[in-house]
């Protein structure tokens, strides 16, 4: 036996004993609220849950945090604000969690963070885009994820580059949908006031959107914008295609919700997905830190699915919290909030810091990277879709494929 192998064995023994001692120690409980049943998006919830579990396992395999293992306590919200509120209440009062992560729906963040604020427990917003979340200015709430203002600006710039004159958006009746649809309108007014824009609010529990779509058939706009989430978004997209509205030779379909990297996208969408323009928070062709590959591989091993944006958002949410616990050397709320404010942590998508400006920038990671890509084939993997807009650069119309 060589010296090196002795060393490896010793290191291995040391790390397992460390891990074992961590498991013996009192766990640090982290509360998770995700959607595990309808009417909310179960697909989103499952991606977030899997992502958090992957990272928790990685942390625990490395000996935990402060020598204590991380334990996730997971609650289902069904995507309903009232359930989210009750879930956060339960996590804080019954399970005594040190922080809440995982929420992926704006309305639920808005309901849940009220409770976290009342009990003064850190709340890491994993995927709530609504600006209202930041505008509340709650010191406990941190946002290492995308925000509506950023998508609105991106969408407005892209629509302008597409040379559109008339734009119609379909928004779901949530804080996210209505907030973003309004935001796109405001941004368009500043960057391209000549474009006529309106949005229709659709009930995400409805099964048929034809009456809202049929009037577009006679007089199609230049761009249809999706501001809805699955499963409602799939029904809407299929019906928009079925009626020959978009994607078509005349009309682009711009997906502001980034649907194409959902695992069930191609189970639900066929021709309607071809030529789609997608606002993407993750694309395999984007540059990413080392950690992204480790986390992505572990995720693929666990689920068999390709990495996606929600995986990385979930991972960073938990990592930002555990990083703060380490730096604060404590799980006390005051110390944690203070440590979170001083965050300078390279996660899976870049270096995360939180702004202290008020308004939509409050406790927000401002420089969230994003791209725009186009789906050019039915059943195409995101990795194979061409980027039409690189991070930090405007959309390049010459790269677009026309239907």
């Amino acid at each position, binding site marked *: 036996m060589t010296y090196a192998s002795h060393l490896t064995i010793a290191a291995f023994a040391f790390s397992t004993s460390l891990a074992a001692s961590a498991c013996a120690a009192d766990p640090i409980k982290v509360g998770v609220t995700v959607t595990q*049943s309808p009417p909310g998006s179960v697909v989103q919830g499952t991606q977030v849950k899997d992502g958090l579990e992957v990272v928790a396992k990685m942390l625990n395999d490395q000996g935990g945090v402060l020598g204590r293992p991380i334990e996730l306590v997971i609650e289902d919200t069904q995507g309903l604000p009232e359930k989210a509120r009750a879930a956060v209440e339960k996590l804080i009062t019954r399970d005594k969690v040190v922080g809440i992560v995982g929420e992926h729906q704006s309305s639920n963040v808005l309901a849940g963070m009220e409770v976290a604020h009342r009990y003064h427990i850190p709340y890491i917003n994993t995927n709530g885009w609504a600006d209202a979340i930041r505008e509340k200015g709650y010191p406990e709430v941190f946002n290492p994820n995308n925000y509506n203002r950023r998508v609105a600006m991106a969408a407005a710039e892209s629509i302008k580059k597409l040379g559109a004159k008339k734009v119609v958006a379909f928004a779901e009746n949530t804080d996210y949908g209505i907030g973003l649809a309004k935001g796109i309108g405001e941004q368009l007014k500043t960057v391209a006031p000549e474009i006529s824009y309106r949005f229709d*609010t659709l*009930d995400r529990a409805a099964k048929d959107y034809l*009456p809202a779509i049929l009037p577009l*058939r*006679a007089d199609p706009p230049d761009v249809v914008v999706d501001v809805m989430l699955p499963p409602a978004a799939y029904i809407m997209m299929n019906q928009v295609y*079925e009626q020959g509205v978009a994607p078509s030779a005349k009309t682009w379909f711009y997906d502001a919700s980034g649907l194409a990297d959902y695992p069930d996208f191609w189970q639900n969408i066929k021709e309607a997905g071809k030529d789609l323009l997608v606002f993407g928070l993750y694309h395999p062709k984007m540059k990413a830190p080392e950690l992204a590959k480790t986390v992505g591989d572990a995720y693929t091993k666990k689920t068999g699915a390709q990495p996606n944006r929600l995986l990385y958002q979930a991972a960073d949410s938990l990592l930002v919290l555990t990083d703060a616990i380490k730096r604060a050397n404590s799980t006390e709320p005051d110390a944690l909030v203070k440590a979170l404010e001083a965050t300078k942590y390279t996660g899976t998508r870049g270096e995360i810091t939180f702004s202290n400006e008020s308004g939509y920038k409050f406790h927000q990671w401002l420089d969230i990277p994003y791209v725009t890509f186009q789906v050019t084939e039915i059943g195409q993997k995101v990795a194979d879709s061409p980027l039409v807009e690189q991070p930090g650069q405007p959309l390049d119309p010459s790269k677009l494929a026309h239907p």
Partner: protein
Amino acid sequence: MLSGALAADLAVNGLVTGLFYGLMAIGLALIFGVLRIVNFAHGEFYMVGAYAYTIIAARLGVPLFVALPSAFLFGAALGWVVERTLMRPLYANIGSWGLMRDEYAVIVTFGLSLLLVNLVDKAIGPYAFRAPALVSASRVVVGPALMSGQKVAAAVVTLAALALIALFLRFSYWGRAVRAVSQNRLGASLAGIDATAVSSLVFALAGGLAALAGALLSPIINASPDVGAFPAIKSYVIVVLGGMGSIPGAFVASLLLGLVESFGAVLVSYQYRDTFGLVLLILFLLFRPQGLFGERGREV
């Protein structure tokens, strides 16, 4: 305000939707006709049909033309079991409800609805399932309108099923027995018709038809535990509009409701379109309980 093309589109869309409503609602009307109760678990037969079709076709890989009738049979079997176990007190005077048979029916079918929804939620999971389509084309030209291939296929099967039911009720012995019991249970029994068997038959038929509707629409509206809520509500509206228990009335009311919703959404309000039918239901129960075509004098 309405262009000709849009009006045609809305009419086609409304009529096709109405056709599906018809398939969902006819069973409810049959049950009301024979047993004079509203089955509050009606939507769950639809849900069960959607799941049966999806699982048989997608999981077990059975050909679609076999999976579709299997869903019907599954719903029919469930309907038959429900009638045998739970509906007997309605006419056999057993159980502790005595005179409150209407109340018993409401509670027991309401409980059944809760049971089936939660059972499927726990046993199969809360996830929505997408079923394989009979016709996979996303866009088909039908006259002036565009439709998904599945919708066209479902409409054809629905028409065929409705025609078969009409023939069955009109010409077969059991069909005539169903109509006889609907008109006068006691009289039919005196004439030697087995009213108990007719009740079972009607429940099986209603379960089967609702399940068939669920199966046909499951490639368009994904199967999930709570998917039965909307067909149930639409069916209540249709049965009241058509005249409680009337089969032709229910069919006409279905088409009408489809049209009202389709045009109303564009002309009146898109947001509130699901309330149109419900408002009609209340108005009809209050001012015209016999429905669109029924005779006066039915006890309310």
